């Protein structure tokens, strides 16, 4: 923000950073400059207030909630998440195809599953005293969403001695659903000439996501080897808006009776559609009766992206109202990265299972192609850019994306009650490196703890899992304190297994 304050009045320019090695534009930012006082207000309103706001516009196409999911795209189901998401080498229920389609071959009976989700995302940045005269109050951005996560039907078919296990499923693999509100962030700037007191807030309301309709088939090819395959049709998109408000009063110290007021509201509506196809292959080997190894490969995908952004800004400067609007959109596409995962599951005793997964996603190759925006003169600017991050970078600080790595581990212990009542208890941990560094150049890693339990009686199973992911990062290289990030999710699964 300090940089922007030093801009030249009535000037507009485009700051572009080109990655020479890749031959793409890493970041391009329109910088609007106004008289210094107004610049501050505009920036406070429009740039860093969102939960995951970015300098670039691309982040708007994926919604605020998307970041946590981008590198954390795994599978579905409360049982799996209760175990920290370490399920590649287990994958033995109706959610199998989302983790490792190789696990489908283990299913002996038809199963139906339904999973729902509740999510709470929060970022908290403590108050900052940039200079003795420059105070920024605490920013607390809190958002909730809930909804459907996964539904599937699996129906093993026996043709002679050949067993085939087809599954059809619908999964919200990345959720854009989120309704967030940010507190009134107070900024006070005191100079020998004037005193500025500014309040700004932000509301975001988005729905949608990247949904997968999957057709899967698993089979057992040898006594101890299961293989599986899924075709995933990725679809849906984002629909929603972000509204930012600011109110400023400026008191001249030379003439204290004269108070200057300024109000601004910016409303940005975003609608996007996405569609693509990818494939998953999985293998699951029963090395021994108590030890399994699973490997899954999720192919990359080219996802078509059609988007339309409308931005309207209204200002009221001492009673003078001004309105402006901007609209842009394009048919673009992005390269969704491939993922490879390996999992191990060990069963020291019948009721206890311990599992570990290792997953790597090639984010270094994930790029937004033909990304189009309108510059201030309403001219088209077409860019190839990297994926959004939730750290805010000065354009010259944005580094290349790197491959992300996840390590997940968990255990499940099943208490066997009377009359065949089963009560599984689960705990898990995971670490999730991100594909970018924060504004200080440090690698961003999120950590998570999970826990869950279930109840299974006869053909019905109900499972519930809680997941808490947390981390901290320096959001902007002008910040004096790190932003604390937390994501709390609850998953509930209901499974009917036809046949005991």
């Amino acid at each position, binding site marked *: 923000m300090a940089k922007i304050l030093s801009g030249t009045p009535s000037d507009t320019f485009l700051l572009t950073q080109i990655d020479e090695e890749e031959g793409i534009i890493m970041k391009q930012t329109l910088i609007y400059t106004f008289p210094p006082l107004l610049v501050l207000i505009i920036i406070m309103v429009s740039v860093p207030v969102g939960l995951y706001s970015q300098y670039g516009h691309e982040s708007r196409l994926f919604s605020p909630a998307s970041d946590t999911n981008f590198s954390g795209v795994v599978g579905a189901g409360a049982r799996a998440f209760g175990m920290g998401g370490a399920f590649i080498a287990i994958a033995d229920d109706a959610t199998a195809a989302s983790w490792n389609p190789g696990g489908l071959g283990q299913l002996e009976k038809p199963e139906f599953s339904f999973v729902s989700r509740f999510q709470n995302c929060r970022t908290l940045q403590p108050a900052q005293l940039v200079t003795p005269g420059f105070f920024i109050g605490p920013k607390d951005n809190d958002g909730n969403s809930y909804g459907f996560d996964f539904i599937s039907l699996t129906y093993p078919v026996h043709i002679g001695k050949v067993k085939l296990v087809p599954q059809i499923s619908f999964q919200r693999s990345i959720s854009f659903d989120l309704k967030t509100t940010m507190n009134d962030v107070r900024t006070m700037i005191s100079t020998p000439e004037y005193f500025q007191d500014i309040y700004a807030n932000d509301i975001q309301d988005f729905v949608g996501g990247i949904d997968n309709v999957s057709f899967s088939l698993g089979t057992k090819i040898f006594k101890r080897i299961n293989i599986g395959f899924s075709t995933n049709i990725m679809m849906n998109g984002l629909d929603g808006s972000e509204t930012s408000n600011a109110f400023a009063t400026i008191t001249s110290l030379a003439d204290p009776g004269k108070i200057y007021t300024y109000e601004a509201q910016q409303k940005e509506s975003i609608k996007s559609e996405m569609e*693509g196809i990818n494939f998953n292959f999985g293998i699951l080997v029963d090395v021994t009766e108590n030890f399994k190894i699973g490997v899954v490969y999720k192919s990359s995908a080219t996802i*078509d992206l059609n988007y339309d952004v409308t931005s309207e800004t209204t200002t009221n400067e001492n009673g003078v109202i001004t309105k402006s609007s901007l609209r842009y959109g394009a048919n673009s596409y992005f390269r969704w990265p491939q993922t490879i995962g390996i999992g191990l599951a060990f069963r020291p005793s019948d009721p206890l299972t311990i599992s570990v997964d290792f997953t790597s996603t090639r984010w270094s190759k994930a790029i937004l192609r033909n990304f189009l925006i309108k510059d201030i003169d309403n001219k088209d600017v077409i860019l190839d850019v990297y994926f959004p991050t939730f750290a805010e970078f000065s354009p010259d600080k944005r580094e290349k994306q790197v491959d992300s790595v996840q390590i997940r581990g968990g255990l499940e212990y099943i208490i*066997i009650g009377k009359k065949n009542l*089963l009560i599984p208890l689960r705990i898990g941990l995971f670490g999730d490196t991100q594909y970018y560094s924060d504004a200080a150049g440090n690698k961003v890693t999120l950590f998570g703890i999970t826990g869950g339990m279930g109840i299974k009686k006869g053909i019905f199973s109900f499972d519930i899992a809680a997941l808490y992911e947390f981390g901290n990062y320096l959001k902007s290289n002008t910040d004096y304190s790190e932003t604390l990030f937390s994501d709390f999710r609850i998953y509930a699964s209901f499974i009917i297994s036809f046949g005991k």
Partner: protein
Amino acid sequence: MILQKNKITSLPALTGFIFLSFILISTFTYQLNADQWFNHYEKAMKAFTEKNWNQTISNLTEAIREKQEPKINCKTWGVRFVDYLPYYYMGTSYFYLGNYEQAKFYFNKSLEYGEIKKKENLLLDLNQKLELCKTKLSPTPIETPPTEITQPETKDSSTAAQISQYIAEGDKFKSIGDFPSARKEYSKAKNLIELSKEKTNLLVDITQKLAETSKTEKLLQAEDLLKQNRFDEAITTIQTVLKDNRADTKARLLLKQAQLARDRFQKTPPQSPSTATATTPTDTGGQNSINILLVEGSQLLKQENWETAKDKFAAALQLNPNLPNALLALYTIANHYLNSGIKSYFNGDLPLAEESLDKVLDILGINPLSSQNNKTVINTYLFKAVILLEKHFLGTAAHGNEMQEARDFISKIYTLDPDFQPPKQYFSPRISYFLERTYFLERK
């Protein structure tokens, strides 16, 4: 729709191709894609419900081949558990087919593993059927070997197929405990392999299978001989197993048991014919009760439920005093109480120490080991004497005869071991003085 046209057209074709490939792979590998134990067991349970006994036996044989050990709450797949009790259902199926010999064999096998005891209703049913089997078999008291399953003559000209069939038959016989037939089948397979001179790995495998079968058979023979008090023959049989593998734990343990039983048998006066008849293993009803007591006692011992375990073993010994396992178990329990007593003594808890030592004396009363020179007996007498002396010196004596009782215990020690030297260093000066003086008197 923004999906590109080429994607729309290529998707069904590609997906169809991959799905078809899966079906083909699965079809070509189905012979290797055999069912797992729980698939066989599920089919067996279905056949059992339908009272299709032959089908039940066939499926259970396959299940046992995959998984021998029965288990309550055994995990199958996913979050699914099953009570895996194949031998009980095998026995029941044979029972309804009228094959009481096989039924008895599998019921006994089920009892041997012990898991059935966790299911009271099934255990009751098993015991009832077992008794009926014994009644039906009683006119022919001579044990006949289990019915030999006729081996189908293979018409396959391929040697490999014939070898596989012999091995499979051998495995089948082995899984049902018919070791002589298993050995016969393995030998046929081995002969063919040697003639073919190709399958060297298979030759190693089959040699191992033969050795394993032979060993198990010999150990079972030895156990039978032990039951008939034919100790020397049993020991010789076990030693032939140990000759092949000196580290075989099971054989070594059995040898120890046999030697101990022989020593004890030689020292114990022979029983009157009437008593012997009452307790001989051929008394199947009594033997069954003994087996149940021994299994229950062992489980209680594992749970460290010492007192109840002691009662079980003592009850078993009342039915048959010649049970090496029961005697060993009692010896273990006695040592546990002795250790507790000694610890309590050195912690200054004399009442608790005395209580523990009384429990040892109680066990020694049951166990003829008490007449032998061993450290358990000697230490029990020693600490019992020491506690009596402590009570005497502390003035907490109950009846005033403690000093005399202590002397009696010390005398018993010298009867067992005339060279016994009391460890005076562990006790108070007064106790040490008493022990030294008693030692002097006894030596004199």
